[in-house]
């Protein structure tokens, strides 16, 4: 069959919270569908309901609830339980929420206790700082690390706040007991006590459920050097060409020829083409360099919030796209079979 293509996927870079891959042999429609599903339809867990018992911090309840909602939550052990295994709270037959459709978290921080903890940690690190720090009145930072997740019916704590989007980030910033995501600063005599219900949802409803911080694609650039014109260039002009590119796509090789060293870095800024126009010795000449987009190859870059790993996001997104198509298919089959629309 002519024109039949099977989309391919090649991974260029994979980290916990970042993936870069090329989706090829397909159209923008498919690529965009994948991108949008990754952003808006991969389900995750996020705090949705907060009941405050005490809040004497400087931020008001609405403010805090919003900040809590934006904290990414992830499954501790996806083999035990995944976010996807939770029921949608709208489909669940419980009253408002239960352990089948939600996870409960609690936050109970008092300035005094937290201050002592911090003083201990700091004291330990810096070799016994003065213990009087607790009364010093320095504010303490309440972070995602202070959130306590209530165990499920099997006494398992299977959800944790994603203090860092990746292991690399954690290594860089230190352990969550002192780090994590800031929620609020507490001053002396202030405290917070609240319970929060995290539910499953998708980014379409609220961005807090989106697993992606960034999900983009771009067409793979095709940069062609015109051999003939290239030959006409002086060394200075070649240097000029190389220097004009802000992302250093070109390089001068040992035989003083311009080569396209890192085509993937091109950002379509058109600088080189503008320069190529001026480098022409004759207006009818072809330009020495041409940048075009390969309309069949899409370079994706996806960065996650830490709620899911980047790999999971792509995997789930593909599943969802597939299930949507299958859904259409089953309905079509149904209609064909019964004749009922």
């Amino acid at each position, binding site marked *: 069959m002519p024109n039949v293509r099977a989309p391919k996927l090649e991974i260029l870079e994979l980290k916990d919270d970042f993936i870069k891959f090329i989706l090829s042999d397909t159209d923008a429609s498919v690529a965009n569908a994948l991108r949008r599903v990754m952003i808006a339809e991969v389900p995750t867990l996020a705090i949705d309901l907060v009941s405050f018992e005490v809040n004497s911090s400087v931020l008001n309840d*609405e403010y805090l609830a919003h900040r809590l909602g934006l904290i990414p939550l992830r499954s501790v052990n996806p083999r035990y339980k995944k976010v996807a295994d939770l029921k949608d709270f709208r489909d669940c037959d419980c009253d408002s929420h239960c352990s089948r459709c939600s996870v409960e978290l609690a936050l109970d921080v008092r300035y005094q206790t937290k201050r002592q903890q911090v003083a201990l940690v700091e004291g330990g690190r810096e070799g016994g700082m003065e213990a009087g720090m607790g009364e010093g009145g320095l504010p303490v930072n309440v972070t995602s690390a202070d959130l306590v997740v209530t165990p499920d019916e099997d006494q398992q704590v299977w959800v944790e706040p994603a203090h860092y989007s990746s292991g690399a980030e954690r290594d860089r910033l230190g352990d969550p007991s002192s780090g994590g995501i800031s929620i609020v600063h507490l001053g002396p005599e202030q405290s917070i006590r609240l319970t929060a219900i995290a539910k499953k949802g998708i980014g379409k409803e609220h961005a807090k459920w989106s697993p992606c911080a960034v999900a983009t694609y771009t067409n793979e650039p095709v940069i062609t050097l015109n051999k003939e014109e290239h030959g006409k260039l002086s060394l200075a002009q070649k240097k000029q060409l190389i220097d004009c590119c802000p992302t250093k796509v070109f390089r001068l090789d040992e035989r003083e020829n311009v080569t396209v060293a890192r085509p993937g870095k091109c950002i379509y800024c058109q600088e080189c083409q503008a320069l190529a126009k001026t480098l022409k010795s004759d207006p009818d000449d072809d330009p020495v360099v041409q940048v075009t987009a390969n309309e069949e190859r899409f370079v994706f870059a996806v960065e996650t919030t830490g709620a899911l790993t980047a790999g999971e996001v792509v995997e789930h997104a593909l599943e969802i796209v597939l299930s949507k198509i299958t859904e259409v298919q089953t309905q079509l089959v149904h209609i064909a079979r019964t004749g009922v629309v």
Partner: protein
Amino acid sequence: MAPPSAENCSSGIKASNISNLGSNFFFTELADQLQEDVSKPVTDVADKWKLLPHFLQLRGLMRQHIDSFDFFVNREIKDIVNAASNRELRSEADPKFWLRYTDVHVGEPSVDDDAYVSSRVTPFQCRLRDCTYSAPITVDVRYTRGRQIVVKRGVMIGRIPIMLRSCKCILAGRSEAELAEKKECPYDPGGYFIVKGVERVILMQEQLSKNRVIIEEDNKGNVSASITSSTHDRKGRSNIFVKNGTKVYLKNNLLGDDVPIVVVLKAMGMQSDQEIVCMVGDSPEMLDAFAPSLEEPYHLGICTQAQALRYIGAKIRNTTQNRGPGPSGMGFAFYRRASSPEEEAREVLASVILNHVPVINFDFRTKCIFVCHVIRRVLLTHRDRSQLDDKDYYGNKRLELAGQLLSLLFEDLFKRLNVQLKKQADQGLSKPNRTQSFDVIKCIRTDTITNGFIQAIATGNWKLQRFRMDRQGVTQVLTRLSYISCLGMMTRINSQFEKTRKVSGPRSLQPSQWGMICPADTPEGEACGLVKNLALLAHVTTDEESEPIRKLCFDLGIEDVTLLSGAEINASSNYLVFLNGLIVGCHSRPLRFVRLLRLLRRKGLVAEFVSVCLHEVQRAIYIATDGGRVCRPLLVCEKGVPRLTNMMMRQLSSGLLTLAELIRCGVVEYVDVNEENNCLIALAQTQLTVKHTHMEIDPLTVLGVVAGLIPYPHHNQSPRNTYQCAMGKQAMGTVALNQYERLDSLLYAMVYPQKPLVTTRTLDLVNFNELPGGQNAIVAVMSYSGYDIEDAVVLNKASLDRGFGRCLILRKHQTSLRKYANGAADNLRGPPEDTAAACSGMGGEPSAAQSNSAGAYSIRRDPRLRRFEALDKDGICQVGERLENGSVMINKESPISVADLNMGSGADPTPFKPTPLSYKGPAPSHVDQVLITSNEGGDLLVKGSADATAYGGTVTGRGVAARRNGA
């Protein structure tokens, strides 16, 4: 305007400058300097804009308001009380009785808890408690009680509202921590008043200057010199004008008719025509022009002083108005009413007409010379209209500040108090047989002054009949939409011109406003150009003692004008010297005189705000020490080199030198609009030539506080800057650091305000980074069809979800529980109990566990009672409860009859009617805070604020004010 250039010039220093530097600098630094810069010939001051923070540190942002208030409470109030007409109180009933004020003080801010106790108070308490932040005014008096002479100190006569951060305010000079302790925002500029819990600003009022001659064309096309005379005793206005193009007349309200000017001169003792002509000018052209006026008296048959006086005496309007309201004596009599018309005319000429020219013991010499000079100028202008004064020229304007307005008000109230006292004294003393000797002090009613001040500031109506003053809108509520709106309001200048006037003159931008008035910040529409804003470094002067300057003038070689003949005065080699509009004398070497006087000022021997201006056309030197002039600091240059050196800059930044010292040693000086005419000011160092006398500190100082926020204003079309000035004030953000505690009637607070990515130097100076307004948006500009609606932005939903443009709206609702004259009082009542629940026995125990849920439980049954859901047992809503349209927030009930004094005192239950405070609003909100306090009247005050979160984009009626970044 050039972009603020970041010249990184050489940090050179000329060897000869080192001697000027004083002794206090590091020698090591000196050594470094010498080594690195010997080759550099001329000092180049790098980063002279760094002086700006020092200016703001020295003067503060709102210094003009505070200075003027300080001046009033420290000096002017004493002058008023000590003025001849106010100082002493006598009674007609008893000639032996007198009361003399010896001194007056303004105390510490306090609030009266009840009739006997007053306690110290912070401004923040006043805001919350709807009180007035005021301090008692006390006087020291000597008076007679019976036969005794009594001396009393600290007698309170009333309260005066205190300007925040003024010298009498408890916040003056406090550190940030101390301010925080008083719940005050450290970035708050002060300069406003708190009256009944409302922050009010007395706007600066722009006026034509007093006691100056302004030659203008009146509405008949005649050349007319209008002179507004103003002294502590009387304010009036006279015109000397050429009537029908021939004869010169004097016009004054007190005179029924225009009086020929030569008659006036004759009445003042200048009987000889020869003398008059000499004084006015004896050039042939002058003679021709003046001849008709000179003939005039002879047609009227007036040759002698007595005749002239009689003529004028007959023209004096015989109204009681001249004598002021109230009985004579303590009233506002402008002059003593004399027996004959001649004497009366003499009195009027001495103390009413042109009363700012002093006449001592009827020695009219100075006044004659002044009048002749005015005639001369009028006649000269009549011949050559190009000499007309420009009314819109900013040197002819004076800004009236809070201090001046309050001093007028105080003078009026104080006089009123004295009239009251006198009446009481008359009554008390005229009683035939008194058991006790009459004690005036007990008659002092403090609320005359207290309420007078509060009334005026709270309404903004300055209605002082005594001074023929009736102004509305003098004060305005300080807008707390954002920090910038608050700052912008404090620099605002109101003009006295009526807004309906279609004239363009006073509205247009005057070149003389450069550096004094912000060229961009003015409202659109009817007030355009009439409401202005001060530029960043502009300063408004306060009154200065003029006597020392006068003496100094004589020391500098001025010849006393009264000793000179007309020929000498008008000699072409002589310059007349004016001090605050009065002729002091003549000088034959004006340039030298001006240079010396300026030199003395730069040496710090003359007050820094004294201005000296040489007017070549009028052949006059004008010296001004009066208040209300706008001036600005400039760098002094000599021979094309600024006196400011890099070494000084370094010493400034390391704290070895202060700006005040720089001013004292003449490196920087304040120059007012008039003196600017004698200056050649370079914009930048590169433009300096030998002729330049001054250099700008930085071009950015031509803009005001609000316009200073605009990045790259010089790349914008000019009206865009004006629009941005109006919009920048509306930007939502942070109001003050104490914004959530302030309980403003409406607060828009942005949840995530951001520091601007593109800042201006002004922004750093006004602490905008600490109290930012708005957020940095990443905007893609699309030029293709689809979403290209003009002036619209498509917002990314995920950004909104994550908090972009999210804001909190807090609205205050308050009510007070009043006590009524009949002893009844408003009541608070808990939520009505469910009738059904009460029957089933539940009504018996809604006590112990009536917390959040249990209390609501009993109510929720009955849908009619749903609106009471938010209430706590005490009838006040609970923090955190949800309020819907119609929900009761404070369940108040008031007695039905409040007038009936016969009501049994507690015997039968007073019938009450419900007067609840309900929540109204389409969207539900939550109770954020509840405050229960008492106001000055002792009434209980319940305030609460409810908040609603709004998402950016859904906030209607508020556009997105974009602070575009140029290019």
